C-alpha cells in the first residue's frame, strides 16, 4: 500500500541552535491510527508542525498524498486536520461560528447538515450557540476536534488530544477516534498516555531527542519486546532459592512469600510446567499464581531509558 504521508530524512534546527528533529524518516499508511510516543521535547509537535505547514523544515521532505508540503502547500494542507496540543480557540466566538470559520478557511462551502452531524457526534449540539470562553476544558477540546473535522480531512493529527481531561471524557474521545478510523480517516496521534496508544493504535513509533528510535505494529512490538512475569505466592516463606531452582533465576520478594519468574513470551509453556514441577519436588506449596505481560509503557520506559 502506498503511504498517505511519506517523511524522508527530515531535520529541523531552530534559530537558537536547538536540533528538534534529526533525519527523521517515516511512512504513515492510509487508514491507520499511528501513535507517536515520546517524552516532552522529543520532537513530536515539531514533526506535526512541519507536516501541517506551521514550521519550515531545515532539510528533508514530507509528502502528503504524493504532494510536497513545501512545493504544493495548498494541496497538502487541504487534506489535513489538526487538533493542536494547546487549547487555542478565539474565546469570544460561539462554538458554531468557530467551526463554520474553520470549514470556510479550509476552502469548503458551508454544509449545515455535515456541521450539525459533527456537533451531535461530539456532544456539542446543545452548546452550539455558547461562547467558547464559557465552555469547560473538556468541551473546548471537543470544539478543537470539531474544527479539525469540519473540512472533512483525509488525515487527522491529534497532538495530545486527551492531555488534562478526565477519565470519562478520555474514554469518550477514544470512542470518537475509533469511529473516525472506521470512516476512513488516517489518524496520527501523539500522546504521553501509553494506555491511549495501546488502546487505539495500529502502529507505534517512539521518538526521543528528535530521532525515531522504533516503529512497529503495536501487537508485534508487544510480542517481540514484551516479557511476561509470573508471580508465585507461596504458603511458607523461604529465604534462599533451593539449588535445583537456581536455573530459573527466581527473585524473592514480599519477605520470602513471593517468587517472581521472568520469561519469554514464546516459550512459557514448557518452562512453566517444569518450574511448577520442580517447586512441587522441593515441597514448596503454592498459594496463588499471577502472570502479567509487559505493557507498551514498560517498553517505552525501556526504550527511553536507553
Amino acid at each position, binding site marked *: 500500500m502506498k503511504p498517505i504521508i511519506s517523511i524522508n530524512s527530515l531535520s529541523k534546527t531552530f534559530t537558537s541552535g536547538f536540533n528538534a528533529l534529526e533525519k527523521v524518516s517515516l511512512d504513515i499508511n492510509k487508514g491507520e491510527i499511528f501513535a507517536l510516543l515520546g517524552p516532552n521535547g522529543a520532537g513530536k509537535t515539531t514533526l506535526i508542525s512541519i507536516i501541517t505547514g506551521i514550521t*519550515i523544515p531545515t532539510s528533508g521532505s514530507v509528502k502528503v498524498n504524493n504532494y510536497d508540503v513545501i512545493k504544493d502547500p495548498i494541496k497538502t*494542507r487541504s487534506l489535513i486536520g*489538526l487538533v493542536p496540543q494547546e487549547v*487555542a*480557540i478565539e*474565546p469570544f466566538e460561539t462554538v458554531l461560528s468557530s467551526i463554520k470559520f474553520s*470549514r*470556510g478557511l*479550509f*476552502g469548503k462551502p458551508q454544509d449545515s447538515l455535515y456541521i450539525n452531524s459533527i456537533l451531535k457526534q461530539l456532544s456539542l449540539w446543545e452548546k452550539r450557540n455558547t461562547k467558547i470562553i464559557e465552555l469547560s476544558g473538556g468541551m473546548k477540546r471537543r470544539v478543537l476536534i470539531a474544527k479539525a473535522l469540519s473540512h472533512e480531512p483525509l488525515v487527522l493529527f491529534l497532538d495530545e488530544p486527551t492531555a488534562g481531561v478526565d477519565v470519562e471524557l478520555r474514554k469518550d474521545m477514544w470512542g470518537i477516534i475509533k469511529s473516525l478510523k472506521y470512516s476512513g480517516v488516517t489518524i496520527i496521534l501523539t500522546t504521553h498516555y501509553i494506555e491511549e496508544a495501546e488502546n487505539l493504535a495500529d502502529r507505534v513509533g517512539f521518538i526521543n531527542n528528535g530521532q525515531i528510535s522504533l516503529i512497529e505494529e503495536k501487537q508485534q512490538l508487544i510480542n517481540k519486546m514484551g516479557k511476561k512475569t509470573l508471580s508465585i505466592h507461596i504458603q511458607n516463606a523461604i529465604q534462599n532459592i533451593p539449588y535445583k531452582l537456581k536455573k530459573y533465576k527466581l527473585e524473592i520478594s514480599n519477605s520470602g512469600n513471593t517468587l517472581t519468574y521472568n520469561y519469554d513470551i514464546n516459550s512459557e509453556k514448557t518452562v512453566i510446567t517444569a518450574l511448577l514441577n520442580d517447586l512441587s519436588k522441593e515441597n514448596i506449596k503454592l498459594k496463588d499464581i499471577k502472570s502479567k505481560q509487559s505493557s507498551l509503557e514498560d517498553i517505552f520506559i525501556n526504550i527511553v531509558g536507553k
Partner: protein
Amino acid sequence: MNYYAIKAIYLYEMSRTYRTISQSLIAPVISTILYFVVFGSAIGSKIENIEGISYGVFIVPGLVMLSVLMQSITNAAFAIYFPKFVGTINELLSAPVSTIDIVIGYIGAATTKSFSIGIIILITAHLIVPLKIVHPLYMLLFLLLTCFAFCSFGFIIGLWAKNFEQLNLVPMLIITPLVFLGGSFYSISMLPVFWQKISMFNPVVYLISGFRWTFFNFSDFSFGVSLLAIFSFAILCNSIIFWMFKTGYKVRN
C-alpha cells in the same frame, strides 16, 4: 484563490467589529466630535479663515485622516496580533490559503471598517459644520486607498509585534506625531520656510494635502503627487507582507 477562505476570514473579522461596536465605531466618532468642539468651535472661532474657508471646516479632512490612520493601523494590527497572542494563528498557517487570500480577508475587513469610520466622521462633521466636497469621487477613492495602505501597514506591525507594547509602539510614537505635524490642523504654507522644508520629509503631509484638495480644490502639493505617494506606500506595504509570508519571517518557525 480560496474564495471560501477569503469569505470566512472577512466575515469573521467583520463579526468581531459588530461584537465590539462601541469600541470600533462610537469611540472614534466621539473623539472626533471632541476635536471639533475644542479646535473647531472654541479655538477655531478665534482663528481667521484659511483660503476663504472657516477653520472649523478646514480641519475636517485632517481630522478624518487622523482617525482613519490610527484606526486602520490599530484594527489591522490587532486582527492578526490577537490570533498570535491566543495561539489561533496556527489554524491560519495550517490552512490551504495563499498570501493574497489572507490580505484580501484580513486587510479587506480592516479597510471596510476604517473606511466606514471615515464616512461616519464625515457625516458627523457635516452635522456640525457646513461642509462641501468639491471632488467627492476623488475623495472616496483617496480615502479608500489610504485605508487600504495603512491597514496593510498595521498588518505588518501585527505580524512583527512580539507583545502588546510593541503593538502600540508605532501608532503612538510614530504615527501620532507625524499626523499632528503633518498639517491636520494647519496648512503647511502657514509655517516659517525652514519648518516648511522639514515638513516635506513627513509623508503624512502629502496625504493630508491630497485629501484636503478633494474637499476644497486647493492644497500644498498637487493631488497627483499625493495619489502617487499613497499608492506607492500601499504597494510597498503589501510587498513586505508577501515577503514575510514567503520567507516565513516573523510568521512561521
